[in-house]
């Protein structure tokens, strides 16, 4: 008995009626508040502009980034020779005030704006560009976007260490503090578009030298863009504040901007509806289960977007080494059924690989994309009349139970049914997790696989180029010398019409040979109240400089 009483004393539960229990509750409240105390709160007021920005950026280093969400933040911090116009997304002068182009269109000479400075007060010189670009090309930094720089003389050799012994290095150099010269391999009509990409931005070599990997996390990191990085709290927020030394500071609209790394669409919608977020800025942040309801709202905006959902065929394996089989499978797909029943966000069925609306390019007549009888005929010609003797085939996709990848499964099931119905062939479905899927696709360890491609710049080349023989993003095993030659020739052609016609011929071959089957073009989606939020203009690249966006006061 006495021992039991002793224990009761430990619990401080001596008084009948349970006044010990409220004690526990008091402890709870104290612990809770103490725990909260260690957390940094949201210092000061709410930011002037709060953006729901999809997943946490992998990096804020212009050289390392790959995702669109990363780029939105990086573009506000670092600027290149050119920047994009908020309305048209066309390249306009950035840190370079002007440039001249040589007669053969191969040498660009840029004049930097006089008096431009890093946010720490140091002048930005042409030498900074030379160092930034060299760093971007340095193979040790393994930039995934380094390929965008290969239009520059010697860049590819430098990046892939092909000319270890060559003295020359890549074809760009600072002529003096203000002048920067770039020599191209061949004339490139879209070269100025490329220069607005983050990988071409000026990065602070002096800060990177001191802290090569964590430099972006150091305090007061020098920036060249409209905003300085105030903090980067993982999975919480990235806050940027106006850079008073930015050359166009007077046109920066919002003082403080928060980017929230949100990957759950419902969370984004909740925050938006509660007024904690001004803009939902990513197509993946739209909760698909309420999309019908959202489409009726004034603050739900949709626009054409430079992205294509498509299938890749492994052309090195039977039966897909026969273009007739690939075409047959492609013609059997009822794309409208997929966009109307599954994706349901206004996507357009894709008859071509290059999205409609791409700058300076139009495929012309729309090819027939759904023709089951022609599909059956092609399959019969290939030796499989009514699907007889067709070997077992697998459709490979990456899946997830929720989020934007959850549609892949539904589309796979639909495709399976269409191929069964129209071609009488059995296609098995194989789902794998993203990283495994990527490795398998890269090593051609698949038969038919789900794919997508988002354009980097507003030109058909960003799409067509990936299916040239030497491209590492090809991933189909398809090689066609005629296609390669046409792309090559097109990129050397400066005359718009002549170039368009060459690219058209190339895409015609791509669609005839069908190493891929385009399914639909993505739609860009934003949520914001246009009466409150100003300066966001829809464009096919879905790029919107943050410096131009403002929220009306008083809301």
């Amino acid at each position, binding site marked *: 008995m006495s021992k039991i009483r002793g224990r009761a004393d430990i619990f401080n539960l*001596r008084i*009948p009626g349970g006044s010990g229990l409220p004690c526990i*509750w008091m402890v709870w409240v104290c612990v*809770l508040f103490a725990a909260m105390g260690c957390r940094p709160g949201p210092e000061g007021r709410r930011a002037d502009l709060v953006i729901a920005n999809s997943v946490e950026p992998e990096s804020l280093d212009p050289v390392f980034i790959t995702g669109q969400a990363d780029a939105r933040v990086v573009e506000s911090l670092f600027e290149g020779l050119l920047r994009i116009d908020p309305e048209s997304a066309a390249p306009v002068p950035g840190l370079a005030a002007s440039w001249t182009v040589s007669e053969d269109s191969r040498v660009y000479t840029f004049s930097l704006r006089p008096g431009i400075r890093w946010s720490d007060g140091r002048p930005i010189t042409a030498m900074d560009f030379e160092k930034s670009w060299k760093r971007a090309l340095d193979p040790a930094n393994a930039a995934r976007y380094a390929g965008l720089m290969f239009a520059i003389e010697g860049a590819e050799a430098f990046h892939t260490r092909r000319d270890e012994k060559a003295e020359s290095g890549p074809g760009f150099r600072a002529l003096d503090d203000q002048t920067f010269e770039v020599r191209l391999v061949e004339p490139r009509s879209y070269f100025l578009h490329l220069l607005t990409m983050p990988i071409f931005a000026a990065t602070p070599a002096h800060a990177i030298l001191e802290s090569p990997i964590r430099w972006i996390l150091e305090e007061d990191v020098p920036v060249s863009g409209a905003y300085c990085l105030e903090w980067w709290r993982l*999975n919480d927020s990235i806050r940027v504040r106006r850079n008073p030394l930015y050359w166009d500071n007077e046109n920066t609209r919002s003082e403080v901007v928060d980017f929230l790394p949100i990957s759950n669409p419902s969370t984004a919608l909740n925050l938006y509806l509660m007024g904690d977020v001004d803009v939902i800025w990513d197509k993946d942040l739209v909760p698909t289960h309420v999309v019908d309801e959202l489409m009726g709202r004034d603050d739900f905006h949709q626009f054409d977007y430079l992205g294509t959902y498509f299938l890749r065929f492994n052309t090195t394996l039977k039966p897909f080494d026969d273009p007739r089989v690939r075409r047959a499978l492609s013609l059997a797909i009822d794309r409208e059924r997929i966009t109307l029943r599954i994706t349901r966000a206004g996507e357009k069925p894709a008859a071509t690989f290059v999205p409609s609306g791409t700058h300076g390019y139009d495929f012309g007549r729309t090819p027939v994309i759904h023709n089951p009888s022609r599909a059956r005929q092609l399959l019969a010609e290939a030796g499989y009349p009514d699907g007889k003797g067709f070997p077992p085939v697998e459709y490979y996709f990456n899946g997830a139970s929720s989020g934007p990848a959850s549609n892949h499964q539904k589309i796979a099931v639909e495709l399976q049914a269409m191929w069964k119905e129209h071609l009488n062939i059995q296609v098995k479905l194989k789902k794998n997790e993203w990283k495994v899927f990527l490795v398998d696709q890269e090593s051609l360890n698949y038969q038919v696989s789900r794919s997508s491609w988002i354009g980097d710049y507003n030109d058909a080349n960003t799409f067509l180029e990936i299916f040239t023989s030497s491209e590492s*993003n090809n991933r189909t095993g398809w090689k066609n010398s005629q296609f390669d030659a046409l792309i090559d020739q097109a990129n050397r052609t400066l005359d718009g019409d002549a170039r368009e016609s060459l690219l058209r011929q190339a895409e015609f071959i791509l669609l005839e040979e069908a190493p891929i089957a385009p399914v639909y073009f993505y739609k860009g989606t934003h949520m914001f109240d246009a009466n409150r939020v100003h300066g966001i203009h829809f464009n096919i690249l879905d790029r919107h400089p943050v410096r131009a966006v403002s929220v009306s006061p008083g809301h």
Partner: protein
Amino acid sequence: MIHFIKRLAMMIPLMLVISLLAFALVRLAPGGPFSGERSFANEQILKELEARYHLDKPVLVQYGYFLRDLLRGDLGMSMKYRNHTVNDIVRQGLPVSMALGFSAFVFAMSTGITLGVITAWKKGDLTGDLLALLALLFICVPSMVLGPILILIFAVYIPLFPTSFFHTPWHAVLPVLTLGVYYSGKISRLVSEGIQDALASDFIRTARAKGVSPILLLFRHALPMGILPVVSYSGPLLADLLTGSFVVENLFQIPGLGTFLVNSSLNRDHTMIVGLVLIYSTLIIFFNIVVDSLYAVLDPRIRSSR
């Protein structure tokens, strides 16, 4: 005390085994940390990148590098978040996960014990049955259902609490409820069963015969016995709450480690997986040892058997 220190010392070889297993398993998984939708310009660049993280070496050599860095308190660079070290991420995320986990623990304990005592006390009448039903309900509703319902009611329809993030105590209320409710139901059942067992035992009958008042019987005699199962449950419970907050972190956009733990394996972020597994297992083992020792202090039967 010596026993306690001995058990703490035993943690070191255990941690080594765990880290080696985690280390080897992540390297067995298909798909690498650097496979991406956009390929590198050539194979050589990928190889160089992997070499920087010693991925070109045999696993045991890699493990050697890992141990060397670990001795300096360095868990390595994240392979996904290329500007961050694993230490950076742990420094930011661990306090948040701990705050959330401990708050939910205290909530689950206090609510669960209160509920359990009343259920046992009122057993047989309607209140008791209703409370028992409530505890059952707590156990049955998973957090991924409860969370959105709470958000909808208490943040959207009645804007009492924020929907997301973890900045002030207000921000913590809904996540702590969501995380703690299941466990409070469990504890309530443990307590009420424990008390009812105790109430049926001989010494209570003796006490009752001696004329001890029912309230005194419950709180002074039955509760201390009934609560013992909860003490032994609290070790795994703490571990559960500290590691199992992924769903809640995701729902409420809480910047804790749970999200990183799950995503790091999807990203094949080798350094991060091993680092986080090590940290979580340290916490789990440590709390279990502490609770075991506490149990020995509280229950004389265990103490005397040693």
